[in-house]
């Protein structure tokens, strides 16, 4: 295997347990540079636990957990994020009492080495004109869709190589959902690698290169987006065909 074939993220035997409860039970997963990989599954299947474990916010065990040649096991979230992998958490979780600008500033606070913060911020505001308009408003006053844009924008301020997105379309109006999926595709086209957790199976498989289906903490199904779309399990369980 040449270095360029080495996946950006390699997960082998990842287990996440909260006390006696096993949320994720020994999964293998890879993400290659430049891909959108989607992680699908019902509520409680272990999707969010997987993402939280990757960035070190959930208790984890694994045989191998390697990102860009770095062993992630034992590293705290702040170190992992500084190495170029970041998470947009479920429910957006913007800092509601801080202004839009302050949210962005904190997003880029520790990443001067990874890119020029002023340039990254200008780029961000060009990408999200609505955030530029609301720069000095409290983030808590934004609409759900705007908060999701801010949450993504804030994560992009760290100029990541790999972006983990946890249910970015959750609770948003259909039009806004379309905008978010367009944005994710644009980001990939501009070179970002994305691991996307979603309940919106149809739209996720439309933009993804590959996908995995989680059920009860195990990988039930995996393949290219086209294969998954065509598979009878997905058709019956998620796409309602």
């Amino acid at each position, binding site marked *: 295997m040449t270095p360029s074939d080495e996946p950006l993220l390699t997960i082998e035997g990842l287990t996440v347990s909260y006390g006696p409860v096993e949320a994720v039970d020994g999964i293998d997963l890879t993400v290659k540079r430049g891909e959108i990989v989607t992680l699908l599954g019902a509520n409680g299947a272990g999707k969010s636990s997987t993402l939280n474990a990757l960035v070190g916010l959930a208790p984890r065990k694994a045989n191998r957990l390697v990102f860009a040649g770095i062993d992630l096991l034992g590293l705290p979230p*702040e170190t992992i994020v500084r190495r170029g992998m970041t998470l947009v958490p479920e429910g957006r979780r913007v800092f509601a009492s801080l202004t839009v600008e*302050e949210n962005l500033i*904190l997003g880029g*606070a*520790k*990443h001067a080495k990874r890119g020029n913060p002023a340039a990254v911020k200008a780029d961000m505001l060009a990408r999200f004109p609505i955030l530029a308009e609301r720069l000095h408003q409290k983030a808590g006053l934004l609409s759900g869709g705007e908060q999701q844009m801010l949450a993504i924008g804030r994560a992009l301020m*760290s100029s990541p190589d790999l972006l983990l997105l946890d249910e970015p379309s959750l609770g948003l109006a259909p039009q806004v959902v379309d905008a978010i999926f367009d944005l994710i595709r644009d980001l990939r086209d501009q070179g970002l690698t994305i691991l996307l957790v979603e309940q919106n199976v149809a739209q996720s498989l439309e933009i993804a290169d590959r996908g995995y289906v989680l059920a009860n903490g195990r990988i039930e199904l995996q393949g290219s987006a086209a294969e998954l779309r065509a598979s009878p399990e997905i058709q019956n369980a998620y796409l309602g065909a």
Partner: protein
Amino acid sequence: MEIFLQQLLNALSLGGTYALLALGLAVVFSIIGLINFAHGELMTVTGYAVCFALIWGMPFPLAVIAGLGVAMTAALLMERVAFRPVRGASGTTLLLTSFAVSAILRVLFQNLISARPIPVSIPASLSGVVTIGPLHLGMIQLISIIVTLAMLLGLNLFLHRTIAGRAMRAAAEDFAVLRLMGLRANSVVATAFAISGLLAGVAGILWVAQRGSVDPLMGALPVLKAFIAAIIGGLGSLSGAVAGGFLLGFIEVILQAYLPESLLPYRDAFAILLVISVLLFRPQGLLARKTLVKL
């Protein structure tokens, strides 16, 4: 009217000290959910530091700086030695840990320094009285009002203009997500303790300057008052802590001034009664935060 204005100034001076202390409690509580009952011992240790600095011949301003330095160092040490190992534990564990720290420090002060009050020689220039029109104000009271306002303004600028300050406000809201910004949890918590130590140090020096002595239990009463003030304001809310501090100071001064002499021994009881009635109507405190996200 003049008497009322005079009492208002007294209330500002006393309430300001409570506000600084309550703010110190709130800064730490808002981030790690710890009510630090050893906060009063930070005042005491500052008092001793100033006291010994003066005894060793340091000029007063230098002694003040030394005292503040000792206060911040003591707060950082407390965090590193006692509170970091139990971070994320239940509120009860944190509370009991802070009681233990407080008790240990008091015993150390009693055994290593003295159980009796040690006089602190405050410069004579600070014991004068300033006359503004019809109002008479002790120099120390005046300084205490000015210092309190300067501290509040400075803290406000810090929280809104610097990365570390913004990180603290964000940490109070959602610590886990702040770590996703690449900011180290330990540095944010340490900053909170350093600020809380600075606030306790300033309050401690103002307190000592008014009393002229230091003893091992010096911090106990003011920190209890500060705790009440923080509760009135809504625990974890910084502006609430300031409002609660000034309100409690105001209530105490007004009761002191207007209660009939036979009832004066019950001043604190009346003050607490008023606090209870505030909490009956707003159990979450005057300016409570909506939710508290724990680490």
